């Protein structure tokens, strides 16, 4: 096979992995703190994508300069995280903390069903395509192949910034430390005066915003159609599960693995591209059920 194909696949995988990382790290963070796997997480991605695309299209229609699209993407992500994510946490999740896992799953699944239809109502079923930000950034040439700056540089940079920022936030800031404390021992943290309910809410909003950010970034690169939420959910779960739920750095590695695996499939066995993430997840879980970067936890008896 030609070497430039390999390179192209690798770069594609990097861009794709960056995107999935954003979504997966949100899922993983929420699980780490709330102990809930949020099935509606894919919807935050989809809604983030739609809101961002709508914003960018509105900018274009109003004749405003294209660079304004970039802050728009960020604002869209934050808005979706705060409004939709916050509402879900306050109205529903709060009522099921500490309940049976299956109950929590079904509640977030119900939210997923509601949000999937809500998208269709608000944004219709026609494909959305808002690639102005991607075109505006132009292309770069890598070994004779032209590649969009947006995918090759911006998306990995954003992912890297999120990874570094999240690490810094959790380790160095007092609120970040409060989150970590609640994760490790909720009762002790509450006794120390940490407001666990607030930590839960803000963590959920951050996680949801990250998913929405992933969607917002993706909105410039692909056309949006109903149903993108479901696929993304499975994919981001695969990443989080491969890394070990709650593992943030691990999610970056796993996202890269899935990204590269998928783009390799796109180039070399296109009919199986959708299968690759599932297959990687199954193989990893078969060998290490607790994920690659987790240690085994046993229940105290």
């Amino acid at each position, binding site marked *: 096979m030609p070497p430039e194909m390999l390179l192209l696949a690798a770069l594609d995988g990097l861009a794709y992995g960056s995107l999935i990382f954003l979504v997966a790290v949100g899922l993983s963070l929420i699980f780490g703190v709330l102990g809930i*796997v949020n*099935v509606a997480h894919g919807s935050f991605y989809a809604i983030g994508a739609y809101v961002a695309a709508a914003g960018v299209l509105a900018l274009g229609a109003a004749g405003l300069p294209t660079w304004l699209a970039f802050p728009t993407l960020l604002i869209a992500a934050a808005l979706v995280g705060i409004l939709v994510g916050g509402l879900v946490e306050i109205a*529903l999740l709060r*009522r099921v903390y*500490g*309940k*049976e*896992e*299956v*109950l929590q*799953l*079904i*509640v977030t*699944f*119900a*939210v*997923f*069903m*509601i949000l*999937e*239809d*809500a998208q*269709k*109502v608000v944004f219709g079923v026609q494909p959305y395509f808002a690639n102005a930000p991607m075109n505006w950034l132009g292309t770069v040439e890598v070994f004779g192949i032209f590649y969009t700056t947006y995918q090759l540089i911006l998306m990995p940079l954003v992912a890297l910034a999120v990874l570094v920022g999240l690490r810094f936030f959790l380790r160095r800031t007092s609120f970040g430390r409060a989150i970590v404390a609640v994760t490790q021992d909720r009762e002790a943290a509450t006794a120390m005066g940490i407001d666990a309910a607030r930590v839960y809410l803000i963590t959920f909003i951050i996680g949801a915003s990250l998913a929405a950010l992933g969607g917002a970034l993706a909105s410039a690169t692909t056309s949006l159609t109903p149903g993108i939420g*479901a696929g993304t959910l*499975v994919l981001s*779960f*695969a990443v989080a*599960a491969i890394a070990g*739920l709650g593992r943030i750095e691990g999610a970056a590695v796993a996202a890269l693995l899935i990204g590269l695996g998928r783009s390799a499939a796109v180039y070399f066995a296109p*009919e199986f591209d*959708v*299968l690759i993430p*599932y297959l990687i*997840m*199954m193989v990893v*879980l*078969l060998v290490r*059920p607790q994920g690659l970067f987790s240690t085994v936890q046993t*229940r105290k*008896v």
Partner: protein
Amino acid sequence: MARQLVFGAALIAALAVFPLFSPWSTVILTVALCEGLAALGIMVLLRAGQVSFGHGLFFSFSAYAVAFMAAAKVGHEALVLIPVGMAASGLLAAIVGLFVVRYRAIFFGMLNLAISMVFFSLLEKLFSITGGADGKRVPRPTFAGVEFGREQFELATFYVTLVLCILAALFVARYLLSPGGKALEAIKSNETRLEYLGVSPRKVLYGAYLLSGLLAGLGGAIIALVSGHVTPELAYWVRSGEFVFIAILGGIGGVAGPFLGALMFQIIRGYAAVYAPETWHAVLGVMLLVIIFFAPAGLYGIVAGKGGKAQREEGGR
């Protein structure tokens, strides 16, 4: 107990006579029963505290098995196609089960989802074999050797389905009351103790998984026959989600629950098609939340008068 039996008998009697008075309902009721069978399988797994978001896999697998056989004229007989389709899904569940029973909670749910989505995309992509998104037609087979017209065929299939549902429900009810059923519930309440009784939780769950795959397979085989058409949609996650919805709506307190839920589901679907065609999954989602928060024992809990709320709260930890 007596009250539940009376209720079950009343449900069966109502189902048995309904199509005689309103022939238009035959197919809808058969479809409801098929989905009830799949939801019954979900209920078995829910007893172990596990939820599968991928039982569309077994539902669609048997449906396609029936479609292929019917098209190839191998089994041009409904009473052969149904058990063979069911067995095909059972075989698949026996293989998939080896893998998924190692996992719990979200991992169990998502692996099931993942595997069913793989199958869904294969059904869509392998156009030359499966007919892609358009699916396959299922020619109407003979019924006990007789070539029926459409209406008689539908009526006969309905009654056979009803009988199979009763048998399946009785078997599941028996199983859940047996020590094996209690061992299944033990997976939810305390796997550590189960291990220390010398029992393998995986084996217990494997048996239940097999049963749930067979039940979903039975439903899928019949639905292929009555609808005369199979599409990848049978394997889509929405379908799997509906089974979970039906099981929760009906309630997992008794085997009549999933069937009750399935009937209600058809009614909701009928109304939603008229009043909220674009958003009817959202309607389902809202209902799901209402049930979970306000009537956790489901319809069955309401009808059979089991103190649903108290029961569920005991289950929470």
